[in-house]
């Protein structure tokens, strides 16, 4: 007994160290996964209010830029409206055809917390369940892929940024239609890596990379970026570096797209798996 007590006395700091380190590591492994909902939900609730007030101050400095962007978007939408009116006469349109049914529901939100310097980056948005956001919605910035929502509370959402080494996206080259898998290698926030494109395909620097829509999260044909470097790795595939269109360093206002037919597509797909 005395020896045991002596042992504890002698190694008490090692024991405390092991206990504290154990707590920290269990937090790390249990809480930091893809759907790190519990910890993040609890904690984001406390810090989000603070972060919001800081981000509001920052947004004043970008008002002019935002205004120009909005004006440009308005013009584009007006043009689109003009075209649709002439294309199909919507007033006399009565047949309910699923081809013309709305597939994506769009929302907008403001980014109140963001990082680009970690290996697993997340965005915090100022909208949540109360504003009809839900997990698995696409986050779109500068008309390009930015991330996907992984968790919502009533007033906030957390989205996994494209700049996260766990993020995977099905993407294709617009000019020839070959698709591959796009992910971030954790190095530069301006580039992502497109892999699984076979080497017999002709790939040119400057080609556009866009989404395929296979995952039922991102709308089809949404731009990701432009090819800026092609490398033949040892295997039969290219390793293509893509300059991202969205500038994650100044992300402020983002659009969100929820696929209304996602469950339909997925239910059908699971029947054949």
């Amino acid at each position, binding site marked *: 007994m005395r020896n045991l007590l002596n042992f504890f006395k002698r190694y008490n700091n090692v024991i405390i160290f092991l206990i504290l*380190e154990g707590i*920290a590591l269990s937090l790390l*492994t249990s809480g930091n996964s893809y759907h790190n909902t519990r910890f993040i939900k609890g904690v984001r609730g406390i810090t989000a209010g603070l972060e919001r007030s800081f981000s509001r101050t920052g947004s004043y400095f970008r008002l002019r830029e935002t205004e120009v962007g909005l004006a440009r978007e308005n013009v584009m939408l007006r043009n689109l409206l003009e075209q649709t009116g002439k294309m199909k006469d919507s007033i006399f349109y009565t047949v309910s055809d699923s081809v013309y049914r709305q597939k994506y529901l769009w929302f907008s939100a403001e980014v109140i917390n963001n990082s680009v310097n970690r290996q697993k980056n997340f965005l915090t948005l100022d909208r949540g369940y109360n504003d009809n956001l839900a997990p698995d919605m696409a986050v779109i910035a500068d008309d390009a892929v930015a991330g996907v929502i992984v968790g919502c509370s009533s007033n906030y959402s957390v989205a996994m940024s494209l700049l996260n*080494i766990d993020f995977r996206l099905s993407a294709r080259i617009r000019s020839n239609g070959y698709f591959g898998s796009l992910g971030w290698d954790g190095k530069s926030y301006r580039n992502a890596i497109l892999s699984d494109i076979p080497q017999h395909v002709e790939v040119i620097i400057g080609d556009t990379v866009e989404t395929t829509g296979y995952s039922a999260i991102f709308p089809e044909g949404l731009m990701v970026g432009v090819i800026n470097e092609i490398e033949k790795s040892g295997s039969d595939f290219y390793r293509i570096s893509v300059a991202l269109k969205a500038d994650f360093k100044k992300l402020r206002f983002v659009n969100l797209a929820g696929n209304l037919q996602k469950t339909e597509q997925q239910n059908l797909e699971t029947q054949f798996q």
Partner: protein
Amino acid sequence: MINRILRYTLIFVLLILLQLFLFNNIQFSGYVNPYVYIMFIMLLPFDISSWLLLFLSFLTGFVIDIFSGTPGMHTSASVIAGFARPWVLRMISTREDYEFVSEPSLRIYGFKWFLIYTLVIVFIHHFFLFYLEVFRLTDFFTTFLRVLLSTLFSVIFIVLLEYIRRGK
């Protein structure tokens, strides 16, 4: 004693605020991200008991974790750094013994000693932090490069901060 607690609370709050609102926003090319909050663990007095040192390390890491949404990452790296501190101090002691009433500072022990001390502690902390962050051993050398570059910048900032502190 009370005076001391107040002083360390002030240092704690200042370092946390600096880290969250200044240094977390500094990124050079995705490889470098300085973490200066570790300075709090370095500055604690020599005569602090080992359990208190560990608990304060835990607390420091935990607060940073909460505000950056990375549960456990900074906490585990800080606890390891706090655990290693007594060994590091013993290893690099220049004189017979440290004066027990004092704290590790540049003024008393000189530039060279402080630089080595900072370098070793920051390296240990960053090493565990960056490998825990990626949580895999692929791209081992890329991560190692990030550790080295970030260590360099953190050390520069910590030494600068120490000069500012001395001027006060």
